[in-house]
């Protein structure tokens, strides 16, 4: 898609024009999907599935229900595509749905066991194995702490701090103002720091992520 957007017929196009072409492509794909074209639906699924999974993972951490959640996102995407008008990039529009599905999941669940399906044990003889284990442990503690944070604040924090998404983009995904988004990230961080006061590993994570 980027090739067709950035270089039409060998001529360079302006960023604005490229963006417009991308959105026209998005709109065309969305219309084909909404019209029930199975090939278009598979194209959309395969093009966006990794990003959806990544966003869910950043918000929720390792999760035994990940397959169901990815499926939930795409079912909602396909159910709503007839309302996509191309005002935002399709990726951003899908990210909005993804964050809402994640928020609904956070709001609904109680603290549950973390599935370790995809967290293989590290052999002690592997170089750096203890560091890898500590990183995993820190991530698990972070997500356990995030379980106690308000869902909206958690999503904002996860997208900005864990995923590294710019605040303005987070605001766009969450359909909120920049100020509200900053406030959500700040409040989530404050809550995590309160919980990290007796957890050096979590405190280390937060300290490493603080903007200088």
């Amino acid at each position, binding site marked *: 898609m980027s090739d067709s957007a950035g270089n039409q017929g060998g001529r360079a196009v302006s960023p604005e024009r490229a963006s417009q072409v991308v959105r026209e492509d998005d709109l065309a794909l969305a219309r084909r999907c909404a019209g029930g074209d199975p090939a278009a639906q*598979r194209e959309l*699924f395969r093009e966006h*599935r990794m990003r959806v*999974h*990544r966003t869910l*993972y*950043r918000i929720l951490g*390792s999760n*035994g*229900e*990940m*397959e*169901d*959640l*990815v*499926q*939930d*996102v*795409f*079912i*909602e995407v*396909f*159910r*709503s595509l007839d309302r996509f008008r191309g005002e935002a990039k399709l990726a951003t529009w899908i990210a909005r749905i993804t964050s*809402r*599905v994640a928020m*609904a999941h956070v*709001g*609904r*669940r*109680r*603290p*549950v*066991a*973390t*599935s*370790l*399906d*995809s*967290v293989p*044990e590290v052999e*002690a003889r592997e170089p*750096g*194995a*203890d*560091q890898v*284990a*500590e*990183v995993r*442990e*820190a*991530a698990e503690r972070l997500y356990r702490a995030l379980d106690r944070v308000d869902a909206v604040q958690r999503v904002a924090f996860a997208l900005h*701090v*864990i*995923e*590294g998404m710019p605040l303005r983009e987070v605001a766009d995904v969450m359909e909120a103002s920049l100020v509200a988004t900053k406030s959500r990230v700040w409040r989530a961080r404050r809550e995590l720091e309160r919980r990290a006061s007796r957890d*050096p590993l979590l405190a*280390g994570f937060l300290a*490493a*992520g603080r903007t200088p």
Partner: protein
Amino acid sequence: MTGGGDRLEIRPGSLPVEQLPDVSWQRIERKLFAQLASAAPRSAAAPVAAPRFGRRAWLVAGGAAASAAAVAAVLLLGRNDSGQEPAPRADQSGARTPSRIATADAPSAVSVGDVSLEIAPNSAILVDEDRERGVLFVLERGETTFRVAPVGDRPPVVVQAGDVRIEVVGTAFAVSRQGDSARVLVYEGVVSLVQQGERSRLGPGSVWPAAPVPAPAEQAPADQPAAPSRAPAPNIKESPPDRGRAIPPLEAPRLTDKARYQTAQRLEQSDPGKARAIYAELARRGGVWAPMALYAHALLEDRLGDQNAARKLLQQYLARYPDGFNAADARALLNESGPK
């Protein structure tokens, strides 16, 4: 991810994303497009605020036997001793929120409260946790080994597998689905099992159900206990370790170090003695989780008020792992507590 020098740094934006395996993507795609193909008439479904199609599909259409067992078991958990049915538990949205863990080709180790589970490949288990009513596990398929810490005033732990209900105080046992019923092996402790109104108590080494009734010529003498009847009224039976057949020696499967570490963390409040023992064993054995266990053990002793033990453990930590992730904190804690 990791910085230079002595201290590990975990930078936001670089935490690893554990990728879904290809088989998961294939499963998602297959289920998604099957659902899309069949969902066209109900496009006016629930709004995005509650897009729980995956679990809804499981609860409603996930196979008659499994769903019936799950629903029955959820109701069973909600009953009090008199069999009355209280108001259903609900979350903020008004819906019950059990969790489901399913394994593919690999086993999985999971902790839920004081319960550690090792879930065999190709198994699925529903977890319904409630602070007051206890934890209910519904084994949909496959096999799971449970280790339940013996905590006195903890709410009950119940495992439902088909029409078999197992109530647990503190023990280790394995349950595998056998059609609409189940097979139970007890490694340690005692479990209470109910099927069709008949209650049995299974001790260490017990296998349930017993082997098929032997031919008359091989039956036990008259003074031996008879096989339990299937009377409809509750009927408590003590199940001998070996119900008349040769059983290979039972050995409880060993939890992974990670699961043991997590179990110890969860036990710190409810059973610090047990948590202390697990940390000590992990630290003694060595391995990837040894430094974490040793440091956590020191913090636990400090919190329990035994500063001397905490100091010794912190010193041990620094001697064994001078460049460990928690070394700087260990030194700071030792300095704070002053020379002794």
